[in-house]
């Protein structure tokens, strides 16, 4: 008899699904819980004839079924009546049937956005290994051994004389080794530095851009960064370049944007300065071209970088970088794409 209970339940579910108007719905009701000849009603009667030792467990499953049928009929009645009757018959305070897709990580969202901006400008996407050699991570980028600039990039070393890349700049070298100018590329990926506090994570993500060709000038770098930042923050903002030092570019720069929160008048986000630091950039150093065998007299180029976490923190007002790596649903679900 247990299997009959099960079958009736299945059959009921399917019949109910097929009943989309009040009339057929009523037919379903009569068929299952009609006073005379209803299938569930019949089961209740049969129960009296069941063996006494089975009666308890059977009784429970028949009653479960009856409850299921009645509840389902009731809610279906609300639905079908909605088609025919006035909306006042519905409990309009109840939430709808939510679609519950997952959400992309906020880092991926920023990454996708930046990718799209560069793809629209005709850049190609490149990538490189996360475990790198000293040559690609430092040497070829004009950071020889014992260079003090290595201090600012606290490096994780990996057995076998390798390291975890401290920036995405090695992808510049790998791309130039493989291709001839002109080229426009971006690479986005994980980088690693031995540093951990609310604004530094030992693992974070960087965007690397590189453009090489004849007649590429510093002004093109400025125009490109301005375009990137305006598109990324979706507003008119001012870009500021400041001279800075990275061994693989010359002239080198850091770039800031006018504060996205206060617009430049000074607030907590920009620490009162009106400016927010975004990243580093510059004209490709001739020594880098020499490493990859490009003619530094003929070609010039620019390169730039920025951190994805930093952009995501700015856009969403997140104050601790470590939240990105806890993958707490309460955090992730705040950024539905």
């Amino acid at each position, binding site marked *: 008899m247990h299997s009959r209970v099960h079958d009736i339940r299945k059959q009921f579910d399917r019949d109910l699904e097929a009943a989309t108007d009040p009339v057929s719905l009523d037919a379903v009701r009569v068929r299952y819980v009609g006073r005379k000849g209803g299938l569930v009603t019949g089961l209740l009667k049969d129960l009296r004839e069941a063996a006494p030792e089975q009666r308890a467990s059977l009784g429970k499953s028949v009653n479960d079924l009856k409850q299921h049928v009645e509840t389902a009929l009731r809610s279906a009645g609300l639905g079908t009546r909605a088609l025919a009757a006035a909306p006042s018959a519905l409990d309009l305070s109840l*939430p709808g049937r*939510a679609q519950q897709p997952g959400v992309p990580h906020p880092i991926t969202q920023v990454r996708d956005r930046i990718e799209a901006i560069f793809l629209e400008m005709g850049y190609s996407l490149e990538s490189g290994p996360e475990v790198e050699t000293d040559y690609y991570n430092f040497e070829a980028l004009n950071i020889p051994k014992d260079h003090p600039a290595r201090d600012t990039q606290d490096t994780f070393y990996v057995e076998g004389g390798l390291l975890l890349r401290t920036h995405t700049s090695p992808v510049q070298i790998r791309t130039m080794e493989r291709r001839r100018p002109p080229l426009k590329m971006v690479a986005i990926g994980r980088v690693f530095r031995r540093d951990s506090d609310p604004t530094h994570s030992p693992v974070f993500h960087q965007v690397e851009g590189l453009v090489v060709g004849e007649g590429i000038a510093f002004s093109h770098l400025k125009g490109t960064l301005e375009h990137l930042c305006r598109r990324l923050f979706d507003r008119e903002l001012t870009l500021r370049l400041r001279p800075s030092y990275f061994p693989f570019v010359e002239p080198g720069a850091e770039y800031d944007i006018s504060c996205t929160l206060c617009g430049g008048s000074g607030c907590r986000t920009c620490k009162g300065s009106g400016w927010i630091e975004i990243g580093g950039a510059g004209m490709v150093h001739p020594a880098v071209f020499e490493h990859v065998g490009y003619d530094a007299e003929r070609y010039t180029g620019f390169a730039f970088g920025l951190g994805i976490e930093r952009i995501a923190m700015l856009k969403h007002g997140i104050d601790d970088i470590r939240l990105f790596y806890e993958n707490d649903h309460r955090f992730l679900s705040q950024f539905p794409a």
Partner: protein
Amino acid sequence: MRFSHAWLREYVALDEPPEAVGRRLTAAGLPLDGIEMRDAADADSAVYDFDILTNRPDCMNHVGLAREAGALCGRPLRVPGARVPFGGPPTSGSVSIVIEDPGLCRRYSARCVLGVTVAESPRWLQARLESIGQRPINNVVDATNFVLWELGHPLHPFDLDRVRERRIVVRRARPGESLQTLDGVERRLHPDMLVIADERGAVALAGIMGGRASEIGPATRNVLLEAAWFDPVTVRRTSKALGLHTDASHRFERGADPGATLRALDRAATLVAELAGGRITDPALDQHPNPETPRHVPLRPESASVLLGYDPGREAMRLALRSLEFRIDESDPARWLVEVPSFRRDVEREVDLIEEVARQRGYDAIPSRLPLLPDDGGGRRREDRLSAQVHGALLAAGLSEAINFAMGDREELLLLLPGTAPIRVENPLQSQAAWLRTTLVPGLLRNLAHNLNHGGVRCRLFEIGRVFAPSRERPLESERVAGVLAGRGLPEHWSLPRREVDLYDARGAVELLAERLGIPSLRFASDRIASDLPIVGLRVLAGASEIGVLGEVAPPVLRRFDVDGRAFAFELDLEALRGAATEERKFTSLPRFPAVRRDLSLVVDETTGLEEIEGVVRSAARLPIGGIQVFDRYRGPGVPGDRASVAVQIVFQHADRTLEAAEVQAALERIVAALRDRLGAILREE
């Protein structure tokens, strides 16, 4: 690095308020971190904190920074002079100097001040040093410190009477040699390190710190002043090896000016004599075996315009360079020859000169335009597109994206992927992140524990990322996609009963993935994975090759991650998924004739899989089958223990005609008979 406004004003007339000075210097690449003012009304009380980058050791002192400020404001620099009185006893009468390794010590200049009285410095000197956070010690030491912060060249004073035999030898440390440095620490030296020694042993670590034995103290009567140039790499390595970073090493490792030793020496000697009395020896000793010739760098004004994207103008270029003490030879107007001052170790090439010009003008002068270059033609690669599809499919399956560190705990990695030894990180920040991950699952299980421990009722996460396997030359990096599901199932709504996630949720996610990627050959091997594995369930196959695993996370694994209850996981090789994907779909004509659906309720062996049933149905039907779906599976009372009741719906669909009821009925009978004969399936009566 701290700078005093009043001190800077000794060398250049700065009438601007400190904030304005800070802004000008920031715009020229000397970024200001902040200004502190003891008295808001008194500009001279201002102390700047500048972040002087590693390529500008010449600005790590007040004269150097004043030179920059003066150049920016168009005002001359007043360099403090030092007039050592003539007629003192010759320095060579007090001390001798031998440079054993001229590669590591290019220059060594020295003077003595004889008959000093060591005492506290006068108030003005103490105040100067205190204003920038330096602790006054005594008049002799303070004088050398003052010169360091004024001119930038590090000096060292020795108690001349503690230099045995009054003989200075600049040499590499001897094996086993040690030295007690000024900070009282006994340091074991290595032959790669450069020391200042006397006849009997090391008395100072060259360019880093002096030794305790020859320290200037109240009893010191005669002082030996050293102004030298030491090799940056040697200083840096020694400083790192000993964990000893000093104001002197900071400058030497970035490159001091070999041309500056005598000026610094004379300035310090006159100050010492002024503050502590005594006679300055004269002339100085100056060992300078291979003086460097000034560097000349060509500069084509035209190149500056090309590189910057605007023409700064020749006059502006001249002015910018000259104000920073570069000398220009314009014999060839198209190709200037620029002489670089010896303190600018960073200027080696034409681009460096162009940066000097751009920096002085300020980068705001640079126009902004987009480059005109042909499109790169690269765009998005197939692998990126397919990764995005995987991403989209799992989001659609109700999993959210996680991103975890690429490093993990060795035991956890081995627990989830026994047999693949992870690669070690040599200097991890923490032991749980000391090995490169070989599987994404441990990271996701940590996330699962975090979510459940923070009150989450469900956790559905996936990650796409790289894993690392040892390989001969360099680690093999390959991409994986993994997911973890636990807690309440979806969909969740008041109209539906609650349920917990199970294997079919995980499988459904992977099936959606296969559908989106167009992998019709994706199968789940129903031969179960041995139950002693970390993930118990199914092997995922694409065609004949195994591309991953899907199942329930074994309880011992969950215990390791402190997870109660059940969890389901999958991990697939992303490259294999990409390899099996078909991006281009071929169109199939839509059926023009109605389909006929028939349900069968069967009782089969509990080990009989759907694939087998489907195979029998398709081979026995002799009518075209549009599809077979299971709509119920039941075990329990009414069905024998080793059997299961399975209900399937068969869709008959002919491409060219409408099917007759009789032929469908005949097909159904053939199917039932075949199922009975081949699988022992019996039809259940209603």
